[in-house]
Each structure stands twice: as C-alpha cells, then as structure tokens.
C-alpha cells in the first residue's frame, strides 16, 4: 500500500473522530446561543 493510500484510508477515522467530539460540542454551543438570546430579548 502506498503512503498516499494509507493516509486516505484514515479519512473515515478522521471523520468519525471529529464528529465524536464535534457533535456534543455543537449541542453545547447551540444551548449556549439559546441562553444568549435572552440578553437581547430580556
């Protein structure tokens, strides 16, 4: 296997790893933005 192919074979792992941490983080930021809106509506 060439180096380029091996690097490409890491792509699914890369996507999974970033989604693993990215999705909960996005949820946290979304909840924060909901609270933040109170500053402008309150």
């Amino acid at each position, binding site marked *: 296997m060439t*180096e380029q192919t*091996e*690097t490409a074979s*890491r792509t699914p*792992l*890369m996507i999974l*790893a*970033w989604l*693993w*941490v990215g999705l*909960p*983080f996005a*949820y*946290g*930021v979304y*909840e*924060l*933005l909901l*609270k*933040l*809106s*109170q*500053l*402008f*509506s*309150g």
Partner: protein
Amino acid sequence: MPEDGQKLISHTSGGFLSRSRTIAPPTWSRWLVPPAALSVHLSIGQAYSWSVFKPPLEKALDLSGTQSALPFQLGIVMLGLSAAFGGPLVERNGPRWAMFVSMVCFASGFLISALGVATSQYWLVVLGYGFVGGIGLGIGYISPVSTLMKWFPDRPGMATGIAIMGFGGGALIASPWSTQMLGSFGTGTGGIAETFLVHGLVYAVFMSLGVLLVRVPADGWLPKGFNPAKSAAKALVTTANVSARNAIRTPQFWFLWVVLCFNVTAGIGILEKAAPMIQDFFANTATPISVSAAAGFVALLSLANMTGRIVWSSTSDLIGRKNMYRVYLGVGAVLYLIISLWGDSHTVVFILCALGVLSFYGGGFATVPAYLKDLFGTFQVGAIHGRLLTAWSVAGVLGPLIVNAIADSQKAAGKTGPDLYTTSLYIMIGLLVIGFLSNEMIRPVKDKYHEPPLVTVDEPGTLATPQGGS
C-alpha cells in the same frame, strides 16, 4: 554506550497503555490527535457545571449550600495537586496511560457518587466526585499537552488552544445535559443516583476515544515544511530542554506563575459576579438589566472565554508568546479602567470591555503551555504545566475573594451601583500591571538548567536520533 553527558532514554516495549505502544506509524495524521485530546477535555470540563447538582442534592440529602459545594471544591483542589505531582508520571508513562487513568478516575468518581446518593451516604459523593474524580481532572487536564506540542511544533499555541477550549466547552455540554437528565429521572435520591450512573458510563465511553486514538510521533518526526532552526530563531524559543525539577528553580517559571495567577484572578473577578455586576451597574439608569438578560450576559461571557482560548492562543503562534501576554495584561488593564470610569455610560461599553477581559482570561489559560514549551522545551512540559497550574488554584480563591469581600463591605457602607465594584476594579488593574511587569522580566532560561542532549535507545547498545524523545 552513549557519550558522556548524554542522557539515555529507553523505549522498552510494554502493555497497551505504554508509551512504546502509542508511537504513530509514518502515515498517521496529526489531525487525529486533537479529537483524542478533546474527548478528555470536553469530559472533564463537566466540573464547572457542578452547580446543576447542588439544589437537588441539598433537597434530597438535606445539605447546606456549603456542604453541597464540597465535592466541587475538593475536585478543584485535587485537580491542582494531581496536575502538580502527577506530571512526572504522565511524562514517563505517556498520554495513553494518562488518559486511561483520567477516564477511570473521572468515571469512577460518578459511579461512587451514584452509590453515595442511592444509600444517602453523602461522604461517598465527596470522596467519589471530589477526591477520585478530581485526580481524573488533573491527570486528564495535562495528559495531551506535551503530545500535542510534539505533533504541532509549528503551531503549539493553536494545538493546546483546541484542547483547553474543550475544557471550557465541557461545561456548556454538561450543564443542559445534566439538567435534562435530572428532569427525566427526577431530583430525589433515586433520580440523582441514576443521573450520576449514566454520567459515569457515558463519560467512560466518550473518553475511551482519546485512550484508543492518541499517538505520539516517532522520534525525529517533523511536520512537512517545518524548520526547527527557523522557529528557534524567534526570541525566547529554545531547542534545549529543562526538566520539571529544574524548571521550578528558574525565575522564568515564577514570573510566569505570577502572570498566569494575576491574569486568571482578573478574569475570575468578573466571571464570578457577572450577573449581579451588570445589574448593579445599570440599576440606577434608564436601561436596567433584567435577570434573564443578565443570564444571557453570563452566556456571552462563556462564549468569549471559550473563543479566546482558540483565537488568542493561535494568534500567539504568529506574534509570539510574550507579545500575546502583553496584550492580555496591558489591554486587559485598559479595559478594566474603561469599565471603572465609563462602564455605566452605556451597556455596549460595559459588555464589550467585559467580553475582552474574558477572552483574555481564556487566552491566558490556553497560551501558557506553548509559553512553557518556548522557555523549557518539550521534554517535561506537561509536568511543568501541571506545577504552574497551582497559580490557577490560588487565583480561584483570590479573584472571588477580592470581588465578593469588597462588594459586601461597600454594600454595608451604604453604597450602591457601580460603587460596589470600583475598588475591586482598581485592584484588578493593579494586579494586571504587576503581571505585565512580570511578563517583561521573562528572559531565555540559562544554559545551566538545560538537560544534556537526549539519546533514544530502542535496543540495548543501539543509539538513535536525538530528536523527539520523552
């Protein structure tokens, strides 16, 4: 045999958790390391949302506010102690071992707490979440630091900024999640115990990604196009290494300790009293701030704190660490001055200045590992970082103490509005100026503190490249 004066580092094979089993193959992508670090930091950052559990615990176990704060307080103390004293172990055993220990301690802390609540034995909650979980916080906090800087020698500020931003993000996730879970399971002893149990299990699974994914670069590995000689030509950046033991004997370590301590004290000063402060500032104006708007302001500060960690830390890779701290401390002092002089003139002035201060607070946390790497090298930077975090513990007491004590005494003296905070704001300005001067005192570390050149040995009698290592 190695030459005289060279230090021998043995890479013997070991179990799954050993450093030798985590050496990355040549095709490994360094962009897989930040998610590994984030899986740990996003989890342990939960500590800052402990307040969610306080009211239900007080009601279910008949506790006072002081008692219900004990698990968090012990947890933060243990964070400082385990980061300070566990650093050398983390350096010796590697990031996978450290992340595993962090995962076991942090998750076990919740499981022991679940047992404690279910059996109405509150001391088990203090022991579990505070003591056992607190060890997980400290070891987890420093676990990815030196690994990230070895993978990103060209952008160490950005790399550690990502991880330390994760610590800020942990509370953003845990706070609404824990609240929803308590809403589903109930706030009696059974419901709280179930909530703790689920937290322990979910965090164990979530953190296991870090344990499985983390890799250290092979000796001598460097990113494409990176020239260490060019990087070392920058002021204060060293290619030498200083041990944790020697680092604390240098004036640079203690100047940086003061810098971190006072930068954090100034940030916590606002963060601690953010909601009442903005309400008091505009209480006697035409635009008073409601309770819900104040809660929104606190959320905005959290966002600034988190964003500052990645943005300013990455900026430090471009302008240098010393210049970055000049901004945090110098501009921070000016922003505090504007708040104290004209903070009540308009909400926009107050909010923008507070945002700046909080972004510098987060940036100060995130940039310090890279500053340490510049001064002391990557050899034991995780352990040195652990010892520096004692400045955080001191600031955690100092900041709220100053602001609360002064606000209380001013209130007792019959003062209202911004007058409650004027003295504290001037004290914060003074602390930032001392921090600024302390930063100016930082010079390159003297050669006498440097370690002898590293020599790695894979098999007895075989010398390998001196790069990388540790």
